[in-house]
């Protein structure tokens, strides 16, 4: 069994859209994510100043305590059409977006 799972959202934002992305994330996602079991651990901006002629990247680091909670979160998002709609709206403001899942101490696989 694995322990805490981190979820890393990297949003590469079109110049001029930074405030809109932050507002959309704050008002349209965070509360629901918390209800689905996610904890917002940290946010970052890189480069660490808003650029006007090239994209910035906003980074959101979330966590869930274990894989069972991850699946509960995932199931709840899958049953709620507004979650997919939120990301479609967000993607319209971004150049690129990635979500990665991270483990601090992944189990060693037996493999074949």
């Amino acid at each position, binding site marked *: 069994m694995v322990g805490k799972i981190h979820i890393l959202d990297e949003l590469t934002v079109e110049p001029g859209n930074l405030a809109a992305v932050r507002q959309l994330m704050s008002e349209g996602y965070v509360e629901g994510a918390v209800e689905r079991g996610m904890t917002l651990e940290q946010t970052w901006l890189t480069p660490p100043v808003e650029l006007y002629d090239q994209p910035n990247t906003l980074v959101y680091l979330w966590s869930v305590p274990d894989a069972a909670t991850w699946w509960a979160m995932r199931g709840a998002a899958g049953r709620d059409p507004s979650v997919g709609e939120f990301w479609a709206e967000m993607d319209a403001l971004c150049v690129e977006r990635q*979500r990665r899942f991270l483990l601090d101490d992944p189990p060693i696989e037996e493999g074949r």
Partner: protein
Amino acid sequence: MSRKLALVTLVEGADPDRVFELETAVALGKHLPGTVGGGHYTWDGIDDPVPSGFEDVAHFDLVELELIDGSLGDSGFTGEIKRTLLLQVQTDAHSDSVAAFEQDLMAMPDHIPAIVNWALSRVVGPAGARWTHCWEQEYYTLDGLKVDYMMSPHHWGLIDGWFDPEMPQQIVDLELAHVYHATDRSVLAAALG
């Protein structure tokens, strides 16, 4: 060479005696609790498109499968779990993404030794079938599916991105048939043998 399977859903209020007749007439795998979106039974190896005489009892969601690849870790498998996932790749998915998705699925057994036998197939019929792929596995225990498979970081950390509406790379429709049943024989040994 293709083969067929059907997901069987009993009609509401089906006569129990007729259901018993159906259960004894053909080899149905009764779905276990936790099954999602696939009705009450899996009928592997169905020969006829619509079993005659049971239209009043059940709906048959038939698919014709063409194997992409598969492997038998134990050709003499005698149980106990057969799992079937029927899914629909979105029609606008890029062919490169579909190929990468198929490769990722077929890499799962390398990371999850609890998968004993497996097959990935394309749904090639009947015309108008709502599914595009069938991903089947056989396990020695229910925990092999519910714990080893479902809780593997390879599953939730990589594979599920193809299914997840929060992920940019999602290409699989949210509507799935995730079904599993107890069995004392290997369906896949016959299919892959």
